[in-house]
């Protein structure tokens, strides 16, 4: 038996395949350069900036930059074009998947490569620029042949073509989905707009739902977003300026404002901040928001983020600046003050009485969302006398079997609730509601039955949760959630004394906060914001003649003193 085992062992060692279980891979740190991020890398100084007249030299450089040997989606198509019956080497460069092939074929390759009336033009017939008759002598001004202009004017029947002289501009165009045309003997190229990548179509807003307002939201494509804004504003004073952010990504950012309304200083400040960012990449408007806000350490959001074109337009018409980042369906609005985060785009669609009632309810909801758990802790620990005796007995009786102090009890439930909320957001949408049911009903009920928390506390946490859901702005909700925990601790530490201290410090911080020069607490103080659509409690629509003075707009009034002319027999 033993001999048998020995043979088996020898056989296995020599002939049996045993897979290697260990696989060691390490990332070396030798290539990591500990140098400061500079806008221009030192190697760039040695690179050519302008095009050569020789197409091969240009192509070689482009191929090197794009690593075209290993990059599968960089297409370089070389061909010969005919102009004035002469042949020139040419090439187009584009990224597969980002262009519309049909447009390239029909508007670029066909007219350039196939023989037609334009490219067989011999040149004997000079191009006449102007002609006039002087004493029966015809004087003609004739344009000298210029290949660059000839191609531009006769051979590329495409609406958006630009002359490019620098490699950098060419790369930027190619990266954005344009097609780049190079022709031998000329040191300029042609940036041709043939974008055609797949993108999400305009759909309903997901997070800012309204009943009576428009039902379309921004998408990831910057041009679609700007067109949505332009379509609503419908005025030539709307300016949409473009710039790019990020050394690597060169993300397109559009700055939109109304030239005749928005304060020049505000526009200049927005542009100044965006143009002075030393970052490699920008992938969302959320990142840009953090990079350009006044106080980065503050808990409070200082720019409005919205997915709704109508809300964006309302604020642009008030004199604010909208910032659109390519690739993000959320547009930033600067400046953002406290009242903006408490308002819903729905408010202006309703009669002022309904809107004001909703806004009042929202204020109450924010108060409860912020203070209720803290007040509960403070009352149960220090200020029993605030509660009527019967209620106090009920609470105490419910808490009798709970082994934890109130602070542990409330933290347990608040943290559980935050977990349920986070889990509900992250899980796939079909099982999202299940998480809510499991967390909300089963966990809460089980916690009460197990005497981990008192039933009163469940009510407190539930009210707080419902109130926090009524906050219209998602980012402001985060602020309230964090502040709530601070107030819980302060309430536990010193009851109302702690809460009062916390509230005072919060008021101080808010009073100090500014967003693009606008005091954050506007319109509550130092700014008379009456009769404006941005005042927290809305006046009737015919009384909203003032623009918001938060942004000091160029035009003070947005409507006439008497807006309903028909009612006053003052018809135009």
């Amino acid at each position, binding site marked *: 038996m033993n001999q048998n085992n020995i043979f088996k062992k020898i056989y296995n060692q020599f002939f049996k395949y045993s897979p290697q279980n260990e696989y060691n891979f390490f990332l070396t740190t030798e290539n990591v350069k500990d140098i400061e991020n500079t806008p221009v890398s030192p190697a760039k100084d040695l690179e050519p900036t302008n095009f050569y007249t020789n197409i091969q030299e240009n192509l070689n450089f482009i191929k090197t930059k794009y690593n075209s040997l290993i990059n599968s989606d960089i297409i370089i198509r070389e061909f010969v074009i005919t102009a004035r019956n002469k042949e020139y080497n040419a090439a187009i460069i584009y990224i597969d998947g980002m262009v519309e092939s049909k447009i390239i074929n029909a508007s670029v390759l066909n007219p350039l490569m196939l023989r037609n009336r334009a490219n067989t033009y011999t040149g004997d017939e000079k191009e006449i620029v102007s002609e006039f008759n002087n004493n029966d002598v015809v004087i003609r001004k004739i344009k000298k042949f210029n290949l660059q202009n000839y191609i531009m004017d006769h051979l590329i029947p495409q609406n958006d073509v630009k002359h490019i002289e620098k490699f950098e501009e060419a790369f930027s165009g190619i990266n954005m989905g344009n097609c780049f045309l190079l022709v031998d003997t000329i040191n300029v190229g042609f940036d041709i707009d043939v974008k055609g990548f797949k993108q999400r179509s305009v759909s309903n807003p997901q997070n800012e739902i309204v009943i009576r307002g428009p039902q379309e939201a921004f998408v990831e494509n910057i041009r679609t977003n700007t067109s949505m804004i332009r379509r609503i504003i419908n005025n030539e004073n709307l300016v949409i300026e473009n710039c790019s952010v990020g050394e690597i990504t060169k993300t397109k950012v559009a700055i939109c404002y109304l030239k005749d309304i928005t304060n020049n200083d505000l526009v200049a400040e927005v542009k100044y901040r965006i143009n002075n960012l030393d970052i490699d990449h920008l992938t969302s408007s959320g990142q840009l928001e953090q990079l350009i806000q006044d106080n980065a350490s503050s808990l409070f959001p200082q720019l409005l983020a919205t997915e709704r074109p109508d809300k964006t337009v309302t604020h642009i018409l008030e004199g604010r600046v909208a910032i659109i980042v390519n690739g993000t369906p959320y547009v930033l609005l600067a400046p953002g003050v406290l009242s903006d985060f408490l308002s819903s785009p729905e408010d202006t669609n309703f009669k002022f009485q309904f809107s004001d009632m909703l806004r009042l309810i929202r204020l109450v909801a924010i108060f409860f969302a912020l203070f209720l758990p803290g007040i509960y802790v403070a*009352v149960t620990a220090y200020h029993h*006398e*605030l509660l009527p005796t019967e209620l106090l007995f009920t609470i105490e009786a419910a808490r009798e079997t709970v082994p934890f102090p109130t602070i542990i009890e409330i933290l347990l439930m608040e943290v559980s609730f935050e977990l349920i909320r986070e889990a509900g957001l992250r899980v796939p949408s079909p099982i999202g509601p299940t998480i809510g049911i499991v967390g909300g009903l089963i966990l809460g009920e089980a916690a009460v039955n197990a005497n981990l928390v008192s039933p009163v506390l469940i009510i407190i946490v539930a009210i707080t949760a419902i109130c926090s859901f009524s906050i219209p702005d998602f980012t402001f909700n985060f602020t309230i959630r964090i502040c709530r925990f601070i107030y819980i601790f302060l309430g536990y530490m010193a009851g*109302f*004394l702690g809460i009062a201290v916390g509230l*005072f410090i919060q008021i101080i911080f808010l009073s*100090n906060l500014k967003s693009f020069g606008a005091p954050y607490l506007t319109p509550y103080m*130092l700014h008379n914001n009456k009769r404006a659509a941005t005042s927290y409690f809305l006046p009737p629509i015919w009384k909203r003649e003032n623009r918001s003075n938060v942004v000091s707009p160029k035009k003070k009034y947005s409507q006439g003193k008497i807006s309903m002319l028909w009612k006053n027999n003052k018809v135009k």
Partner: protein
Amino acid sequence: MSVIAVLIAWFISYLFKKFQGKDILDVCEFLGGNTLKIIMGIFYIFLLILVPMFVIKNFSETLQLIYFRTSPLIYIVLFFLVSSTITNKFSIKVLAKANLIIIPIVFLSIIVILLSSIKDFTPQRIFPILGYGANETFLMGLSNLFSYSGICYLLFLNPFINKTTEFKKISIISIIISGIYLFLSVTCILLSLSFTFKSGESFSLYLLTRNLEYGRFIQRIDAVFILIWIISTISYISIAIYFCIYVFKKITKISDSSSINYTINLLILGLLILPSNFATLNNIIGKIFKYSSLILIFGISILILISANIKLGIINKKKGRV
């Protein structure tokens, strides 16, 4: 007393008319050079340290008595000082903005107290109108002007305000608001509480709020008023310490105030521990501090302002002759 205080505020703003953008320390420098400025600055620092110290001590002891019987006094005191330290990292504009939110709430609270306690008012308690007699009320009672020792801040406010007319407006309106608040408070206490309660001195208004009830459900809401008063007290302390730092910076010509902020708050904490009990503190306030601050604010400061105006008049007259 309120009328006298308004007149004094008007007079101070009138005396500052020729010293636009200058505070009392600048006026001292103009009158008696750097020496007078430093001497007066030290006096003002003493005053501005002692005022928040007494307020914190008084309020903290009351809070300890009501809610925090098992907590040491220093624990309560630290809440006030930490908040004032944080607040004083910001500018006076921020403090002013914060007060624009706080003051209406405080004012609303006293109106709620007034309306709620009307049912307990006994008009007969107003008698005798002259109290202990005309002499006691009008002459000895002048020392009650101490309630308006906040006028002291007007002496330093001028550089923060651009126009002289604005300064005058602010001075008078602020004293009128304080006067109305004081009048409403005194009315509530005088007409609602019996003499024995009033003689207790400490937090008479709190004792009044304990009796407020609205139906069967809300029977004791004094804690809500305490919350409002805590906020207003922190605001008051912060302003006093702000001006203390301001005076210190001005006489020492230091540009960075962050270290002074910590030092002054720590100094107040140290001073707070000195008086052994509430009675000692009341003794110090009633006998020494009350009269010395009255002399400094309403006596010496106004005297300096008058003298400086005379000096300025003489100088201008001489210039006119030349």
